[in-house]
C-alpha cells in the first residue's frame, strides 16, 4: 500500500534540478510526481518515479545525497471538495500530515495525492476504513 518516494538534497545553485532530471532521464526513469521544499540556502526535491530502486542507485552514483521514504498515495475524484473530504477523515482521526502534494492521472478523471505521514500504517487503515482508495502503484 505504501509507495516509495525519493528525496534529494539540493543546494540553491542554478542547474542542480536539471542535473537530477538529466540523470533520471538518461536512465530511462520517469517522474510521476514532484515537489520541491525550499529554505534560504537549500532545497529538498521529492519525487515519485516508476523505478525507485534504480533511481536511488543512479542518483547516489552521481554524487547526490538521496534517501527513500514511504508515502501513501490516495486516489480521489478530480472534483471540487475531493481533497477536503480526505483531509476531513484524517482530521477527525487526528492523523497528522507532514507534507503532501498532488498530481493528475492522465488516463482517468482522477487526482492523486501523495501524503507523508508520521505513522503511515495508521493512516492507511483509517483511510481504507473510510472507503478511500489507496493507490497500489503509480506505474499505470
Amino acid at each position, binding site marked *: 500500500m505504501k509507495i516509495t*518516494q525519493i*528525496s534529494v*538534497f*539540493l*543546494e540553491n545553485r542554478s542547474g*542542480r534540478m536539471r542535473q537530477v532530471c538529466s540523470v533520471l532521464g538518461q536512465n530511462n526513469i520517469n517522474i510521476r510526481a514532484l515537489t520541491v*521544499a525550499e*529554505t534560504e*540556502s*537549500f532545497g*529538498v526535491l*521529492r519525487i515519485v518515479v516508476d523505478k525507485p530502486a534504480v533511481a536511488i542507485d543512479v542518483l547516489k552514483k552521481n*554524487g*547526490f*545525497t*538521496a*534517501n527513500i*521514504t514511504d508515502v501513501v498515495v490516495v486516489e480521489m475524484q478530480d472534483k471540487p471538495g475531493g481533497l477536503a473530504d480526505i483531509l476531513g477523515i484524517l482530521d477527525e482521526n487526528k492523523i497528522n500530515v*507532514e*507534507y503532501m502534494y498532488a498530481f493528475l492521472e492522465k488516463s482517468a478523471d482522477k487526482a492523486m495525492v501523495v501524503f*507523508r505521514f508520521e505513522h503511515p500504517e495508521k493512516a492507511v487503515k483509517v483511510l481504507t476504513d473510510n472507503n478511500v482508495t489507496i493507490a497500489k502503484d503509480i506505474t499505470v
Partner: protein
Amino acid sequence: MIWKEDVECLPICELKQLQGDRLAKLVKYVYSNCKVYKDRFDQLGIIPESIKQIDDIGRLPFTTKLDMRDHYPYGLFSAPRNALNEIHVSSGTTGNPTLVGYTKEDLALWSDVMARTICCAGGHPDDIIQIAYGYGLFTGGLGFHYGALEMGLTIIPTSSGQTRRQIKIMQDFQPRILCCTPSYALHMAEEIAALGLDPRKSSWEIGIFGAEPWSEPMRQEIESKLGIIATDVYGLSEIIGPGVAQECQYKDGLHIYSDVFYPEIIDPDTGKPVEEGQDGELVITTLTKKGIPLIRYRTRDIVSINHEKCRCGRTSPRISKIKGRTDDMIIIRGINVFPSQIEHVLLGIDGVEPHYQIVIDRGASHLDQIDILVEMSPEIFSDEIKQLESLQKKIKQEIMAVLSVSANVKLVEPNTIARSEGKAKRVIDKREI
C-alpha cells in the same frame, strides 16, 4: 601627555638595567613559586641566580598556550588562588580554556599600563571615554575601565552592541574618546549615517581600536568617515589583556611597555632572534606580574620591532601592526577562534562529517560574518525540511555556546568543499583588512 614619563622615556641603557634587574627577580620568583617553571629550569640546568641581565633571557625556555592549557587551571600560577583578585577565562580549543588571574598588584599594573595607553592615544584626565568593548570574561572592557579609572576620566561603560543606544549616548554625553573594535567603529559610522546624521560631527575625536587586526586603508576609512584620530591598541589576555602596546599621535608603530612586558622577535621555526626590523614572532616576558607571570610567552603574532626613540619622546620600542599569525587562529568580531574548535563542535553532532569550511566576510554592516558550510551526509539527510533546519540550528547553538560567536550554518552538497591533496581548505577569509 605621557602618563609615566619616568619609565616611558627612560634612556635606553637605564631601561636595559631596569629590565635586567626585573628579569633576575622574576626568574627567582617563578622558580620558588611555580612548580612547572622550577621543574623546567631544573631540567635545563638553569640556576636562577645565573640570570642577571636582560641579555640572559635567551637562555630561558619559551612558554606556549599549550602550557597554559596543560596546567589548567592554576598550574602556571606563581601566586596562590586566594591571592587572586580577578580571573578571566577565554574559550578552549578542544580541551581546557585559557585562564588568567590578577593579584591586587597585577590589577594595579593593568590600571597603570591602560592609563599609559589612553594617554598615548591622546587622552586627558578631563575627557569622557565611551568604552564599547565587551565587559565580562573578555578583558577588553574591564581593561579600559581600569585605565580610565586610574587616569580619572569620566567613564561611560556602554560595553559592546546596541548600536543605536551607543549613538544616543554619544550624542547626549559627548565623549571625546571611543574604544571598540575597528570594524565596530565603521559599523557605528554607517548607523549614524543611516539615522540621517553626519558621522563626522560625532563627538569622538580619538579612537582606541583593537582586539582584531586592521590595516592602514581601514584606518583611513575610519578617520575620514568619523572625523577621528584612529589609533591601534595591542594586547592579549595571557600577558595582561589590552595595554601591552599602543600607538601615539605619530601612528608609527605601537609603543610596547617594555619595562614591564619585555619583547623579543624570533624566527618561529628556529626560536632565534631575527634582525632588528625583520618580521618574526613576538615573544613577551611579563617582568613584574605576580599572579601568572610568563617567561618568553609565544604570542603567535607576527610583527617587526623598532628600538629607535620616537618623536613623541618615548623610548619604549615600537612594534608594527600585527602582520599575521604563526598558527591558524582567526579573529571574529574581536573573539579568537581556532578552526579546530569549530571542527570539535561539528564532530560532536551525530552524523556530521568533518567536511566543513569557514567563510568569513564583512558585509555592508562592516561587521564580521561567519558562514560555516557543512557537507550533507546520508546520515543527517532527511526528506523533512524541519529536521534539516533543526540540525542547522543545533550546530549554530553549539558554536555559540563554545565560542560566543554567532555563525550562519549552511548545509551544502557532498564533495562541494574543495579538497586539496586530501586536506580541505578550512578557512576562506574574504575580509579586506
